């Protein structure tokens, strides 16, 4: 086990993939000499050369479209989108080409492309640097969507994503890049869990709290705080946003009867809606109350002086837990 930051864990996973498979190619803006704006690819171009760690022209559709061509040629491109809000120029290539090529060609052409996206807020940055666009991609058939929350998962799952023959959107919680954790680098990939498997972060019996990416830490802190009040919260880290691991979610909700989902992304049409609807369909008779969503508002990502209001924090999550439990909460007395 080694102590390392989240960013270093991804770097280490990328390095491993580059070493293990000569067809792995990293592409993106500023990922070479600079090592990426977050230094996630630090040192990789120096060690693997300019043809394997490619500083691309500043054109996201161009990066994604050329990645499609490289995949056609048998390569396994790993694309870095510099910031969440910069992914939209590549949206057409992702949705119309990357996601559909395997289906279109009846399985003849694989698109083993990993699209790394630093995402989420909490870093006080200007517009377009703090978004959570994951639901656009979970809504798109043909893509797998991952969001990791710990250095260990970052290390393991980036390698799984790269090894996957299906395209993977890999959302990295940028405000956790500098958080440290234990990473077992000797871990055998084949021996690890399926990429679809959610993780029970802490067990509980009163309410199920579902989070992913940057909010897993917040959810865990909320669970600790709730425990002080005698409320037992089971925290689940989704890890895979598409597909969702309903087996793990169902097992938890059948036990607790209450469900709270939290994410930074806006509420309407978000992951929380999908989790709530699906769990309601599957576990209706086990639910004691309606599922509760604690999410960002349906607003463009706000300017940074206001982002603490937008981002679900520990107190808002606990307020949601209180709602699920029917305890006094901020909405007590309101109908519906």
């Amino acid at each position, binding site marked *: 086990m080694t102590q390392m930051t989240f960013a270093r864990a991804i770097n280490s996973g990328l390095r491993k993939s580059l070493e293990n498979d000569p067809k792995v190619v990293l592409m993106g803006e500023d990922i070479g000499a600079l090592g990426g704006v977050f230094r996630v690819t630090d040192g990789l171009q120096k060690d693997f050369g300019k043809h394997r760690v490619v500083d691309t022209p500043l*054109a996201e559709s161009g990066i994604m479209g050329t990645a499609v061509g490289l995949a056609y040629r048998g390569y396994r491109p790993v694309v870095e989108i510099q910031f969440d809000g910069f992914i939209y120029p590549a949206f057409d*290539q992702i949705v119309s080409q990357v996601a559909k090529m*395997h*289906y279109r060609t009846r*399985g*003849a052409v694989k698109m083993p492309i990993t699209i790394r996206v630093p995402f989420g807020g909490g870093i006080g940055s200007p517009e377009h640097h703090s978004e959570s666009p994951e639901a656009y991609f979970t809504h798109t058939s043909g893509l797998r969507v991952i969001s990791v929350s710990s250095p260990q998962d970052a290390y393991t799952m980036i390698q799984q994503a790269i090894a996957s023959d299906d395209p993977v959107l890999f959302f990295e919680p940028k405000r956790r890049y500098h958080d440290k954790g234990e990473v077992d680098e000797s871990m055998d990939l084949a021996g690890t869990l399926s990429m*679809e498997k959610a993780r029970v972060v802490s067990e509980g019996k009163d309410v199920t709290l579902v989070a992913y990416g940057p909010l897993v830490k917040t959810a865990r802190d909320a669970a600790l705080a709730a425990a002080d009040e005698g409320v037992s919260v089971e925290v689940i880290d989704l890890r895979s946003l598409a597909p969702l691991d309903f087996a793990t979610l169902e097992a938890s909700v059948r036990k607790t009867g209450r469900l709270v989902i939290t994410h930074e992304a806006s509420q309407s049409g978000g992951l929380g809606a999908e989790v709530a609807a699906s769990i309601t369909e599957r576990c209706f008779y086990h639910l004691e109350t309606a599922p509760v969503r604690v999410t960002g508002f349906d607003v463009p990502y706000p300017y940074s002086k206001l982002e603490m209001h937008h981002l679900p924090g520990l107190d808002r999550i606990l307020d949601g837990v209180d709602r699920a439990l029917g305890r006094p909460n901020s909405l007590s007395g309101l109908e519906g």
Partner: protein
Amino acid sequence: MLTDDAGKGGIAAGGPRNSEDSTRRTGGDLVQLITPAGERISHPEFDPWIQDVSDEQLGSLYEDMVVIRRIDAEATALQRQGELALWPPLLGQEASQIGSARALREDDFVFPSYRDNGVGYCRGVKVEDLVRAWRGSASSGWDPYTVNVATQQIIIGSQSLHATGYAMGIQNDGADCVAVAYFGDGATSEGDVNEAMVFAASFQVPVVFFCQNNHWAISEPVRVQSHIQLADRAAGFGIPSMRVDGNDVLAVMAATRIALDRARRGGGPTFIEAVTYRMGPHTTADDPTRYRDANELEDWAAKDPIARLKSLLDRKGLLTADLEAAVAAKADAVAAELRAGTINMPDPEPLDIFKHVYSTPNSWLDRQQDHYSRYLASFGDPAEAASEEGAR
């Protein structure tokens, strides 16, 4: 279809070597080697690249062009008869497609648009596979790796980036094959085509941008896309370009060979503007009489690519009764094959809808498939249920 020594798709590349400087040009005058009247005119820069084309090969180029025109007409008829949902005719663009495709080597890789059926045919795509997607029997016609032709792209210009990325892969592999992107005049306005040229120039990868300027993007004339010749745009990216008569099969072949040769020798990308004309509608759903002048059509009919090659063959004494009979027989046979292949094409099974979305099992989709198959089974006879489902 090709029967000579060229193998699948190619007439072995001829032409001078080490001519980089003399061919590194930008746009310029329209290059023509065969006049509309069928007269072979000399061009010192381009002639060397097609001087090896034998009389027999000239005849086979003629055959390919006649056959693809026949395929195009038959597919249009099949659409009118309700056997295809849609068809994008290439009428008038035969020389652009056959001349360029026949210049390719088997290991070159083509990224075509939906109109490039002549290219697919040349590369060995089965004729019924050309219409498979237009019948709605699959979302594409063929396995790209069996013919080194990607499936036809519908999103305008998207494939130019795929070709460029593929060429980046070729470069990494140290191979000397070439990726070729086919697109039209409308596509040159798309960001993807411009980004492709930026990437191709930056990395100097072996890609050819083959633009068929057929003058119309559905109803929009090319002047809406550009105020300069399309070939001249390439200079802004630092990419050499050529502007050739796209209704002249030899000029197109020569230009393509120049570009391929440059790419194989590490000289990077080339942009070719093949100036041609879409004689038919954009697709069978289009009505060009609403937006273009009949006189324009007449002018271009006088420059017909097949008529001009036929005249050349005649002038050279090559247009024998035997050749004409053989070509006609081939066209008849291929048209019959296309018709039979279309009509006898099996319909997909209902649960095929779930196939190949992912290459590995996916729990969401597996559940939806399971539920839908139970639903179909609830009718007793799944086939009957599916046809009722579709009828609603």
